[in-house]
C-alpha cells in the first residue's frame, strides 16, 4: 500500500473559529496508512499548485481522516467553501511523520495552526505525555478538548492572556522544563517558535522533532522546490520538506 491521488468525500464540516475549518474526509485507503505528522496535498479549485495540509487525526475503523486548516489565501479560501458531500482531490499520505513511541513521554508543542498536526501524535506516545498549545487569543483557540482527552496535562498560552497563561508557548515551556522532564518534544508552529523550542530542547538534552513548512509543488520529492537547509554529519545541504520532512530532528535543521 502506498501513496494515492484520488477524489474523496467530505463527510463532515465544522468551523471551530471564524477562519478555521475542520473537515472529516472519507478515505479508508488513506486512513489505513497515514502516520501522525504526515500531510496530504489538496487540489484547490483552478489553482496550479495543490495545498499541503497536515492530517490532524485518522480513524481507521471509520475510514476517516480529519484536517483542520485556516484561511490564509486564495487556495484555503476555496477549500473553506466546500460543502459536506463534495469531493476533494487529495494526494497522500505524504512525508515522514513523528517517530512515535508508546513508551516515551512526549511534550507536544503547537502554535496556532501548528496545533492540529500534533493531535494524532498525542495518542501515539505514553499516557503521561503533555502538551502546550499557544494561540493569539481565546477566540483562535482550537482542539483543546481533543488534546485534553489524550494528554496528561494541557497547558494553554495566549498572546493576549484571554485564555491560560499570557505569553508564548516558550514561556510555558521554560517554566515546565524547570520541574518536569520529557523523553521527546514534538513541535509545530511558526519558525521562530520552532527555533526557540529547539534551543530549549537542546539546553535540556531532550530529543526534539519539529514539523517544518515550505512552499511545495510536487509534494513527493521529485521537483526539489521545498528546500529546507539541514546539517547531517556536519555537512550543510538542502533537504526537502515533502519527502525528508515535514518532520525533522530539530538539531539537524539549520535555523
Amino acid at each position, binding site marked *: 500500500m*502506498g*501513496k*494515492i*491521488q484520488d477524489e474523496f468525500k467530505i463527510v463532515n464540516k465544522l468551523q471551530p473559529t471564524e477562519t478555521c475549518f475542520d473537515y472529516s474526509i472519507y478515505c479508508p485507503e488513506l486512513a489505513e496508512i497515514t502516520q501522525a505528522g504526515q500531510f496530504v496535498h489538496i*487540489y484547490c479549485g*483552478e*489553482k*496550479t*499548485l*495543490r495545498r499541503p495540509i497536515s492530517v490532524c487525526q485518522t480513524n481507521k475503523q471509520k475510514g476517516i481522516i480529519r484536517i483542520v486548516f485556516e484561511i490564509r489565501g486564495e487556495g484555503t479560501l476555496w477549500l473553506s467553501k466546500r460543502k459536506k458531500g463534495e469531493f476533494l*482531490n487529495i*494526494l497522500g499520505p505524504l512525508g515522514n511523520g513523528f517517530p512515535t513511541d508508546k513508551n516515551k513521554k512526549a511534550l507536544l508543542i503547537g502554535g496556532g495552526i501548528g496545533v492540529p498536526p500534533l493531535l494524532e501524535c498525542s495518542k501515539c506516545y505514553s499516557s503521561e505525555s503533555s502538551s502546550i498549545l499557544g494561540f493569539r487569543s481565546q477566540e483562535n483557540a482550537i482542539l483543546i478538548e481533543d488534546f485534553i482527552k489524550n494528554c496528561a496535562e494541557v497547558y494553554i498560552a495566549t498572546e493576549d492572556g484571554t485564555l491560560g497563561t499570557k505569553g508564548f508557548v516558550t514561556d510555558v515551556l521554560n517554566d515546565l522544563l524547570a520541574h518536569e522532564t520529557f523523553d521527546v518534544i514534538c513541535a509545530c508552529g511558526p519558525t521562530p517558535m520552532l527555533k526557540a523550542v529547539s534551543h530549549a530542547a537542546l539546553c535540556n538534552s531532550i530529543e526534539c522533532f519539529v514539523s517544518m513548512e*515550505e*512552499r*511545495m*509543488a*510536487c*509534494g*513527493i*520529492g*521529485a*521537483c*526539489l*522546490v*521545498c*528546500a*529546507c*537547509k539541514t546539517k547531517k554529519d556536519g555537512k550543510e*545541504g*538542502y533537504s526537502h520538506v515533502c*519527502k525528508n520532512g515535514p518532520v525533522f530532528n530539530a538539531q539537524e535543521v539549520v535555523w
Partner: protein
Amino acid sequence: MANLSVNIAGVEFKNPVITASGTYGFGREYNEFFPIERLGGISCKGTTIEVRQGNPPPRIAETPSGIINSVGLQNPGIERFIKEDLPWLLNRDIIVIANIAGRTYEDYCTAVEMLNDTGVNMIELNISCPNVKEGGVTFGTSSGGVEKITSLVRRVCKKPLIVKLSPNVTDISEIAAAAECAGADCISLINTITGMRIDINTRRPVLRNNTGGLSGPAVFPVAVRMVWQVANRVKIPIIGMGGISKWQDTVEMMLAGASAVQIGTANFTDLYTPLKVIEGLDKYLEKNSIADVNDIVGKVDAW
C-alpha cells in the same frame, strides 16, 4: 487504436508524451503511482558535473495559471546520476533523456563525454536555465552562443542531441536555426520565461532568488507560437513544451509542429496528466480517423 509511436532522431518513443526535466526527478517518485513505462519518455532533472545545492528557498511562487520557480539546478552531479539513478531508469521500458547544464563549454563537453558510454537514449542540452548566475542562460540567448556550444558538444556527443531553447529571446527561430546548423538533432522548447512576484506585505520578492522561471498553462500560447515559428524554420524534429495540461494542448502543440511533447508543471496539479494526455490523444485520433499520430505533426493550416 492509432499508432502513437514517434521516431525522433532515430529514437523510437512508444508515444509522444515525455515528462519535462526538473519536474519529474529521475522518475522514481511518480513510479509509485503508475508504471512510468507507460510514458513515451522521461527527461531527467538537469544535471551538472559537480554536485549543486541549488538556490535558497523559497523556490516557488504561484502566479495566475502558472508558477515561477528558482530551484537553480540542485542535483547530485552526473556521476551519482549515472551510478544511482540511471540504472533504475534503464531497467524500465522508457526512453531516457539526460538533461545537462554547465557553467562553461568544457563543463558541457565533459558531461556529454561522461554520458556517452551510458545507456541514456538522448541528451538534452539545457542552455536556457534562467536560475543560475553564470553560464546557463547566457549560452542560450544569442545565436552565436547557441551555435558555439552546440557545435562543441556535437563534436564529442555520441548520442542524439537535443538543444533546449530559452523563450527569453527576441527571435526564437534564429536561435533554433543556429542550433540546427551546428548539428543539433532535435530542438526542444520552451524552457521557462523569467518572471517575478513580490510579497506586498513584506515588500520582498517571494522567491529568495528574486526572479524565477514561469511555467504552466499561462505560457502555453507563447510556447505554441514559438514551436510554430521554429517549425517553419528548421527541418530537425521539435519537442514542444510549455503549459501543456490536457490532451487538447498536446494536439495543438503537435499541429503547431512538435513531433513529441514534454509535460512539466501539470504533473504538480494532477500527476495523472501524462496518462490522461496519452488516452485523450488516442481517442482524438480515433474519432478523427487518423491512423498515425505523426500525421498531425505540423499540420496547422495557417491563414
